[in-house]
């Protein structure tokens, strides 16, 4: 494994910002730590970079120890590049000089070609002579990426790399960043609180909560097979409803009977079922009627908030030609492809 974290703990006073974090990242893959602010993801990233010591556990990069309690290899010796949230470009240097800044190990005449090559990879060849303040936010971000990648680090860390960009640019740049990282076969770990960003860039995503890693998986698995209630809630939208298992694969819930395949629940167990908006299907023929409480038009579809007969509110994703007014009663079917359920607490 290229990067290994083994039960890493980082405490600030009494509080553990990172609390027993373990994960592995293979060469050439892109990982992401995802979580709400204050979950410890940035501290974890800084510990990997070597800017924070660790209080327990071990951080290794292809076998050699980078950090363990009482020992922190200096950041400059780790061969780890970093893209900072505020980019941290050097304001007194041009774009080219910024990218060439970390190339002091190369012979003098090799530095400029290497910096130019990196800038052409990120598509900024025309801006080499500019200063950072003359660039747009997105361009600055790409300079920061080129600068971090130029010395060919073994690992690149990206700290909320898109957070200061507007939404539209964020989507485009996250695809671009992924393409650049993949074209160089770089190993990378990013940190973000935005799941769209995590899904767009990373191969593997870890959801963090209060310093702990809840699940380390592909985005598909996180959405469809969340292993904890927190992950289920944090990833995607959905509503939990109370239910009881009548027989394996059939649940009696507050909003009616729900059937789903491949579950391991035994009859009589009490569970909370997660119903995603795409599990609640609009069907005029259905006997189950629900009242439209809120509607959000999103172009291709509507996201309706529906009030079920017993008062429970569900989300439903409906193609946009089904235009219903607030207060109208519409027929729905609850049809999860596979059920996400957790034992009632």
């Amino acid at each position, binding site marked *: 494994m290229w990067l290994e974290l083994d039960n890493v703990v980082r405490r600030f006073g009494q509080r553990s910002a990172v609390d027993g974090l373990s994960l592995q990242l293979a060469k050439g893959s892109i990982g992401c730590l995802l979580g709400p602010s204050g979950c410890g993801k940035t501290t974890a990233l800084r510990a990997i*970079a070597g*800017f924070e*010591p660790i209080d327990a556990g071990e951080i290794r990069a292809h076998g*050699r*120890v980078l950090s363990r309690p*009482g*020992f*922190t*290899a*200096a*950041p*400059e*010796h*780790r061969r*780890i*590049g*970093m893209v*900072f*949230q*505020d980019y*941290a*470009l*050097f*304001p*007194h240097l041009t774009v080219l000089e910024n990218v060439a*800044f*970390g190339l*002091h*190990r190369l012979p003098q005449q090799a530095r400029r070609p290497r910096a130019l090559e990196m800038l052409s990879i990120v598509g900024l060849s025309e801006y080499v002579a500019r200063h950072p303040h003359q660039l747009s936010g997105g361009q600055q971000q790409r300079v*920061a990426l080129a*600068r*971090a990648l130029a*010395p060919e680090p073994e690992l690149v860390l990206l700290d909320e790399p898109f957070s200061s960009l507007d939404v539209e640019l964020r989507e485009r740049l996250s695809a671009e960043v992924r393409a650049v990282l993949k074209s160089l076969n770089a190993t990378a770990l990013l940190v973000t609180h935005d799941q769209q960003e995590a899904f767009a860039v990373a191969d593997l995503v870890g959801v963090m909560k209060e310093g702990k890693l809840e699940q380390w998986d592909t985005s598909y698995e996180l959405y469809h097979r969340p292993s904890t209630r927190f992950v289920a809630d944090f990833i995607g939208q959905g509503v939990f409803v109370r239910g009881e298992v009548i027989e394996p694969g059939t649940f009696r819930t507050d909003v009616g009977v729900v059937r789903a395949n491949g579950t391991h629940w035994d009859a009589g167990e009490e569970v909370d079922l997660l119903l995603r908006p795409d599990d609640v299907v609009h069907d005029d023929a259905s006997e189950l009627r629900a009242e439209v409480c809120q509607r959000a038009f999103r172009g291709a579809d509507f996201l309706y908030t529906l009030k079920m007969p017993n008062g429970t509110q569900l989300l439903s994703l409906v193609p946009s030609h089904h235009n219903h007014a607030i207060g109208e009663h519409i027929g729905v079917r609850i049809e999860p492809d596979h059920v996400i359920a957790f034992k009632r607490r």
Partner: protein
Amino acid sequence: MATPASNRYASERSPRILAGGLALALCIPALAPLIVIGFAAVSPDAEIWSHLARFVLPEVASNTLMLVISVAVIGGMLGTSLAWLTAMCEFPGRRFFEWALLLPLAVPAYVLAFVAVGFLDYSGPLQTALRGTFGSSVWVPPIRSLGGAAMVLSLATYPYVYLLARSAFLTQGRRALEAAQALGYSRSQASWKVALPMARPWIFAGIALTAMETLADFGAVYIFNTRTFTTAIYGAWFGMRSVTTALQLAGVLMVFVLIVFVIERRSRASAAFASARDMTRGSPRFELSSTGRVAAACFAGLIFAIGFALPIVQLAIWAIERIGDLDSRYFGFVSRSLLLAGSAAFMIVSCSVLLAYIQRRLPSRFSQAVIRLATLGYAIPGAVLAVGVIVPIIFLSNALQDLLRTWFGAGAPTIMFQGTLLAVLLGYLARFLAVGFNPVESGLQRITKSVDEAAISLGVTGAALLRRVHMPLLKTSLATAATLVFVDVMKEMPITLIVRPFGWDTLAVRVFEMTAEGEWERAALPAVAIVLVGLVPVAMLTRRGAHVA
């Protein structure tokens, strides 16, 4: 482990303690006067107090209070109204007055004072001309009076109010006016109800600065024969040779200063709280009526004329009359001033850099507190600091002398730290540390932690990091800090006067001596040099202002 490992996080305690100790050592010259004066303020000497309370304090305290109040009122009104006109209205010459109204900052109050007295006094050109026209019975209000001092100090210090109020109006005024107008107020109603109250913290902060300058002023009140605390301290020192009296007076003055200082800090705090970003774009300026336009231009022109233009012309005339004074003696004053200002700038900027790096790399509550206290010196009148510097220095040299006596007997070499250049420089450090430290600190703060970390993650650390990242980025801040200290020292009067080695006359001292003898014309030539140097920071200020706008 292939690469050398450092263990920089293992023990940060001892370097932090060391750094705190270094900070304390650097700040001792600035802290000692505070301690001495503070001690004097809380331990009154009964005998001296009864003398002071009977003969000195009533006059001195009422003069000082009257002066501060009149300068606060006049300077506050001048500054606020001019700021309003240039920020919110359009009138002929508005662009020129925007920066020209700051120019009085370049002229020390004592220079404006002696020009005013020299021009307006009985033997001055104005009264001579009046007598020539109307005969000798013509009545003129007494010039060398508290009223005269208040006028001059108001003209010299209104730019502080002007500067702060103007930036308040520019950054929030017009946008706030639009909001008020959208709620149904007329523009002039909105001005009184919204823009002026919103700018109040800034205006108060500016007025507090004028009050602080007034409390600190020595040269101007001396010329106007108005006895205030600073001149009384000087008198106690040179007239009565009484250190204790000077200390007691300094202690009382410090109470005044403290009150104003607290007001200033509070206003600043609420100003920071109320400040908003990027409000510069707003609706167009007020349309004044044609009479209004002329009146505005005349008002701004009048203040500019009597606060800067006319005094400068008068200075130039006198300087040319006495151009013969431009001899080797004059160059002696110049070179001594330059030497003192240059060494003070070097010393204070070096100190500031060290302190700023301690604060950045090894911060502790202790070093933070030490630096805070040490940079308070800028609020303290020079006359007070001079006494506060001399007392510990005398104590120190006496103690050392006694020690040498016990070792070598009567043949011991004589130790005299007082009246040395070192003592003067320590006085400057106490007064101007904040002037150097603030730009260095804010320059260093602009280099964010992640910039450092970016360099480190790219393998650039230690001295290379300083050389390749910090120095290029700090260059301007260091130059600014050095310039500001340099100019302040050139203009400084009371510390130089009280602490300097005997006969070590600088430009400011020369101005003092000539004005003390009423030789206004001969004071002009050294004053011109001081004003020219004083223009540098004002130019820097207006250029930065233009950058913002």
